[in-house]
């Protein structure tokens, strides 16, 4: 059985396969092949994961129950305020709604929410079948905004209309719609917005704390631990920094065009990236005192992290890692982090990586490293075996696969157990990798 479909070969870069072996670029950013066990999610999923962390918003799924039930509190984003976003609201469409249209039901659902609770902000997600039956959710949302004097923002995200990345874009558009009315060019600009961090396991708090310590004010966060009130302040920031570029670079570009806020990409994964990012932000917006503080702070933290890594490196050096994550940027951070630990990356795959990401990836890894776009389990299995990976970093669907293969695993996605960002993240991530690779349980498997 050949585990690689002809059509898939353009999306794999592995020397012995002759796929992309001519040094040409990898095939990415396309829909999955029909009949593949794709690991990919849909447009709606992309939009939802980006907006979901807005803690005091009502997220109503206009569609049948499944699309709502699978996204109920899926993302481990933490909140320091409201818990509203951790509930699941939907119109649970029925047959008669599909036949006669569901707009009225949506309208009623919004009313029921407003009646019962104080709502400031509602997002309405239209999923696949609404895309087909053609409910005019724009109109419903507009009427509700007028009637109740609150923000009701439609997110038209039928899953079939593209890939998860398009969903990110829709989410960014929705946020622009939310904050645009609060832009005033006369406002004095000051401070930083953090984009593309979802406060998974409290990561946003870690990063905010760094800037607090060096005296740089944070204006808004997108969207980790965000609320209506904090988001609408965003147009006042002097600069945007973008952590998860895959999901939020577009938002940064829009804000640059419309509000004149420049942006740059940062990464808080790994010692190198974290240090560079902090210094760069300090340079960009801080005064001399802040720059000095940043230098001291990062030197000290780097020293601590280094001595921590010293302890673990002997346990990890020479191990081999496979990476299979959503975005290209994260894959890049991970490759660097593994290098810091003395671990070689032997397989790299992403679900939504872009051409430029793959170029960077290829410059970071060895020539024999396998690079895949939108891999299926059979491909992952094959390449992890062939490259003798010791650990896989991936998302929820890959965990059981890794375990079946007797390969250690670390969730670097929604289900991460500990914060993986910042210097604290380096400690947690290293511990987690060590814990999984060096757990005694693997011993029993090998004896069997």
């Amino acid at each position, binding site marked *: 059985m050949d585990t690689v479909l002809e059509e898939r070969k353009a999306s794999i870069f592995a020397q012995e396969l002759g796929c992309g072996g001519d040094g040409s670029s990898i095939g990415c950013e396309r829909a999955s092949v*029909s009949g593949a066990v794709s690991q990919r999610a849909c447009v709606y999923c992309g939009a939802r994961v980006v907006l979901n962390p807005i803690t005091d918003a009502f997220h109503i799924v206009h569609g049948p129950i499944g699309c709502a039930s699978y996204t109920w509190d899926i993302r481990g984003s933490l909140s320091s305020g409201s818990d509203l976003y*951790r509930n*699941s609201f939907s*119109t649970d469409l029925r047959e008669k709604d599909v036949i006669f249209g569901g707009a009225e039901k949506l309208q009623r659902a919004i009313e029921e929410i407003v009646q019962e609770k104080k709502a400031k902000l509602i997002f309405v997600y239209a999923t696949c079948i609404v895309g087909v*039956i053609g409910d005019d959710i724009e109109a419903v949302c507009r009427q509700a905004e007028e009637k109740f004097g609150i923000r009701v923002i439609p997110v038209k995200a039928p899953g079939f209309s593209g890939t998860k990345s398009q969903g990110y874009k829709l989410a960014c558009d929705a946020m622009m719609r939310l904050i645009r009315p609060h832009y005033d060019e006369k406002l004095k600009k000051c401070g930083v917005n953090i984009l593309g961090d979802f406060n998974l396991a409290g990561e946003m708090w870690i990063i905010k704390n760094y800037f607090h310590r060096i005296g740089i004010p944070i204006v808004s966060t997108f969207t980790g631990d965000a609320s209506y009130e904090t988001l609408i302040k965003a147009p006042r920031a002097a600069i945007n920094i973008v952590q998860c570029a895959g999901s939020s670079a577009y938002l940064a570009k829009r804000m640059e065009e419309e509000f004149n806020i420049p942006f740059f990409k940062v990464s808080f994964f790994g010692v190198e990236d974290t240090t560079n990012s902090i210094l760069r932000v300090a340079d960009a917006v801080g005064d001399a005192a802040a720059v000095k503080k940043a230098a001291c702070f990062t030197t000290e933290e780097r020293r601590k992290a280094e001595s921590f890594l010293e302890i673990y490196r002997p346990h990890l050096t020479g191990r081999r890692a496979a990476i299979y994550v959503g975005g290209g940027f994260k894959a890049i951070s991970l490759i660097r982090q593994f290098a810091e630990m003395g671990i070689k990356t032997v397989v790299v795959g992403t679900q939504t990586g872009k051409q430029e990401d793959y170029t960077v990836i290829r410059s970071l890894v060895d020539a024999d490293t396998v690079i895949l776009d939108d891999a299926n389990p059979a491909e992952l299995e094959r390449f992890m075996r062939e490259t003798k990976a010791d650990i896989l970093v991936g998302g*929820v669907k890959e965990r059981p696969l890794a375990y079946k293969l007797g390969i250690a695993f670390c969730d670097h996605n929604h289900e991460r157990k500990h914060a993986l960002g910042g210097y604290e993240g380096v400690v947690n991530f290293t511990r987690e990798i060590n814990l999984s690779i060096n757990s005694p349980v693997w011993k029993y498997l090998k004896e069997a």
Partner: protein
Amino acid sequence: MLDATPKKITERRALRVNPCKTCEPVGAMYAALGVHRCMPHSHGSQGCCSYHRTFLARHFKEPAIATTSSFTEGACVFGGGSNLKKAVKNVFDIYDPDVIAVHTTCLSETIGDDINTYIQQMEIPEGKIVVHANTPSYAGSHIVGFGNMMSGFIQYLAEKKAVSNGKIGIFPGFVNPGDMREMKRLAGLMHGDYIMFPDTSGVMDAPNKGHYEMYPKGGTTIEEIRALGSVEKIFALGELTTKAPAIKLKEKCDVDFAALPLPMGVEATDQYIMELSHFLHTEVPESIEEERGQLVDIMLDAHANFYQKTAAIYGDPDTVLGLTAFALELGMVPKYVLTGTKNREFTKKAEALLAKFGANDCKAVDNGDLFELHQWIKNDPVDILVGTTHGKYIAKAEDIPLVRAGFPILDRYVHSYMPIVGYRGAMRLLELIGNALMDRQDRDAADEDLELVM
């Protein structure tokens, strides 16, 4: 969430909050995974399939494979026929299953794809099979989808032979592999020669062998599904889930069936054993008598800790009925009994159970949600929650212990391996519920009241 649920109950007709069900294809996918060397195939956008697999993987902690037709805009306009044909070819080429079980999604249903026609038209390799089931989630929950996929297999494959094969068929309902194993063990002890369909044991609880098997050794075989058409009788356990496929088989192959509750607790397990005994003309062996006796012995030992304790029980219809029956047998008061699946039968059966034990002031609803349940509890609390993971918000907010049982359980281990059916399953449930109640008692006891012996 916790304080997002107001105590005051207002009428809701359009809004669903915190559902206690999920969509049809998940059930269809799970049923199809219980067929040996079968690849479940989701005919719709890739997002649905990805969610369904994730959901199953989270509950079973096993790789749940399935393929998708990957709809794009074009498919929505021109129909998904060419996507399906291409998908089927690719799936056979690369994953080489014996059978592909296609289920629809809301999307392909809404655009009106006629799967049966597509299947007729497509080229299927020699010796390979494609079956399908319609699973629009706007018409039913995962429980309905599970039954529909069973019916789909029966429709395509079950064959009536001139002579009976002398076997019985067991439909286990939407339960864990651990439960299926227990049902089979009991049937085996009764000397039953059975076919279980579907059978996810050995698939969704496959042992670790250090390598990945796309098709582990478990699952009902195609031959067995064909042979369902010539069995002596079907025991449709979990009747709210399995009666429909049993009727389908009756219509197609004229096979009789007994629609029974899930064998949970004393009486329903007795009923399962007695039906088997009666039909197979076998004596109940001493080993089963012994298990029953042990269960009753434990119930007597522990009864004081259960008597009049109030519970909220929620989840899938048959499971909830089984849990409710056992709670009543233990002397508990199942104050709230709720399923998210729309099924009037459920409510009637639950009410009948409550009435039988004289449990007044209890409430049973179908088509409910967990927000509603939370509101009831806010107004009038209970001692314990028994149900799926999603109840943990209520448990936390109201500080009530939660015993996890049913589907899905996303935050614990082992549940899918161990039964809650049969006498031994009842012992396990009793231990889980008892421990939760008594741990709470210990936790809350003043120092001077803490007892060593309980």
